[in-house]
């Protein structure tokens, strides 16, 4: 009887399975018709549901770009909100195809965790935020000895925090939460004096506090936080797609191709543009990648180039108003450098 039951259960399970067994992620993704993208549970500017419940943000737009390149449809993507703790397990186990969740690139994550970082979509650094109304006279992180610090569990932030306070011989009192909402609520209700995370995050979180103007971000940046999309080890084709979608976004910005003029640019006779947009005769850059030759056109048409994504989500056009800074193109004094597409 038990065996029969098990068999029944098994067949029911099989009926529910969304995808058959296959090795290559791209084939898998094509078969199920969408990209499964791991994002954060809600960080304004990077990945958060808007009023209508649609996901928006820089990290989200990267996944939409990948989906556009494959399916010519920015909505052929499903988002899995993940806590910092779950994210790597979810990626390793195949729960998500790509993790685009303000994740810091480190060597141990590349090696021991078996991950591949596809690039750096946002160069960040860890900072501190305090309530300047309640803690008057504090304007440097070096004055924070003895403070209670709110931090999210399982992040590099948590480790940098420990290093920074140890290096400066200061004491602190970590208050560690699993989910971003919980850290926000705890900080807002006065459980800790200091909130630490990536600086971009601090600006985003400040908007959701009950009195945003009372809080200031301290000037110190205590770490390098290169944030980028991540894929699993063991599938080079998929890694290439993630990597080159990112470079394509940068190349498009370098060449001045944006959502508005991409249709016109198709007629351009500049060799660089023709190569990028796949209008070159006999070009097979896209098909070599396992995509179609107009993959970049699809991406730009649906989500725009890197500059547009940045401005729309975290830059001047967003409530966050973060300046490009080191995230500007290399030609403008920043670090964003698109590898040549040829």
């Amino acid at each position, binding site marked *: 009887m038990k065996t029969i039951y098990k068999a029944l259960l098994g067949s029911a399970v099989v009926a529910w399975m969304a995808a058959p067994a296959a090795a290559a992620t791209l084939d898998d993704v094509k078969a199920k018709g969408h990209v499964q993208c791991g994002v954060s549970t809600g960080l304004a500017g990077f990945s958060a549901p808007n009023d209508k419940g649609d996901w928006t943000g820089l990290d989200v737009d990267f996944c939409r770009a990948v989906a556009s390149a494959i399916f010519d449809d920015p909505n052929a993507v499903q988002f899995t909100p993940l806590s910092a703790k779950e994210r790597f397990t979810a990626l390793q186990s195949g729960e998500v195809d790509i993790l685009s969740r303000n994740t810091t690139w480190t060597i141990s994550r590349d090696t*021991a965790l078996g991950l591949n970082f596809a690039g750096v979509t946002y160069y960040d650094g860890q900072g501190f935020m305090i309530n300047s109304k309640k803690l008057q006279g504090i304007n440097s992180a070096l*004055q924070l000895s003895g*403070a209670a610090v709110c931090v999210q569990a399982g992040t590099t932030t948590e480790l940098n925090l*420990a*290093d920074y306070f140890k290096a400066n011989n200061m004491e602190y009192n*970590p*208050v560690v939460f*699993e989910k971003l909402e919980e850290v926000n609520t705890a900080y807002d209700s*006065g459980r800790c004096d200091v909130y630490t995370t990536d600086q971009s995050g601090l600006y985003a979180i400040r908007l959701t506090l009950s009195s945003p103007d009372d809080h200031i971000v301290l000037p110190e940046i205590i770490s390098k936080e290169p944030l980028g999309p991540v894929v*699993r080890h063991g599938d080079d084709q998929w890694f290439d797609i993630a990597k080159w979608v990112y470079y394509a976004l940068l190349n498009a910005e370098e060449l001045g191709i944006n959502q508005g003029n991409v249709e016109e640019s198709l007629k351009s006779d500049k060799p660089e543009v023709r190569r990028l947009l796949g209008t070159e005769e006999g070009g097979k850059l896209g098909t070599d990648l396992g995509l179609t030759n107009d993959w970049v056109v699809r991406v730009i048409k649906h989500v725009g180039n890197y500059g547009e994504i940045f401005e729309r989500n975290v830059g001047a056009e967003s409530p966050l108003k973060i300046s490009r800074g080191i995230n500007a193109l290399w030609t403008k004094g920043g670090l964003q450098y698109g590898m040549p597409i040829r």
Partner: protein
Amino acid sequence: MATRQTIAEGAAPRVPLFYDPRVRGIAYQLLVFIGLFAFVYWIIGNTAANLQRANIASGFGFLEGRAGFDIGDSLIEYSSDSTYGRALVVGFLNTLRVAFFGIITATIVGFLVGIGRLSKNWLINRICLVYVEVFRNIPPLLVIFFWYFGVLSVLPLPRDSIGLPFGSYLNSRGFYFPKFLWGDGSWLVLLALGLALVFSWFVRRWAYKRQMATGEPFPVLWTSVALIIGLPLLAFVVTGFPLNFEFPALSTFNLRGGVQIRPEFLSLYLALSFYTAAFIAEIVRAGVLGVSRGQTEAAHALGLRNGQSLRLVVIPQALRIIIPPLTSQYLNLTKNSSLAVAIGYPDLVATGGTTLNQTGQAIEIVAIWLIVYLGLSLATAGLMNWYNARMALVER
């Protein structure tokens, strides 16, 4: 017809092999065993293949590595230089701590409320009823959130701390009270306490023997209390008060010195205690109601006073009904303490989760979780079963 024949012939009935219950039993078991074995084999194979594909190392070697993260609340020495193994031990001790205090408080509150539910006083009865019905029907996670956010939002910042007697303070960073600093000669106080405990045991034995022999009762409880409080106090006075206090005092951010109990611990402990107490109250009520009225009446008829009949007749019998479900409530409380992760109390699941995230050793960490919680459950159940066996009806 067939039966009669069998009896007449006196031989075993010839049953087809398939209908022989023994053969059938073995066949079924074999089937289950093979199915299970194949299933486990399949899972292990898949896991190994998946791990290899993703290049994940396995094994428990990572426990020796430097953790690198700090833990706010630790019973033992811990810093970011300690190992992952130690971080897990810190988490385990925190789980034990909250479970231990939670069980004690839940039992006390539960017994009080349970007896209150049986009270003839209408008001007390209703208050206890409302308490039980409210807490029993809300998820524990919500109770924890209520305590944490409800209490946090009411408490003031450290600089406006609420002063309490004996130099203790209450603010949004927790509850602070003075630390005891024992001076020279304080070992004598400890010794006196030990002596008092030994004496009380002897007094109890002697009183029991005397009551058996002569029927005269002896106030064992009061003598023991006097001994246990009196002797250490005497030692304390003799050694010249070797006790100092370290009072908490305000610094830039927080209160310094003294002992701090964090709001995470406090709210988890209170939430678990009050949630579980509602269940224990119902168990106690059912237990007391389960002792038939005749028992009380018989006790009265024997001339026992109200208190005596409760203590000697009703409660020992009620306990027999109470203990098994009480055990499972204790287990539930221990398991529910894993909800700590929602409010940032560093218990085993929380520190394990952070370790998992830093090292990526999902299977090993989950194995540790399973083993520890199973161990705790078995230990608690074992202890309570032993107590239950002692309390059980000895039938002659």
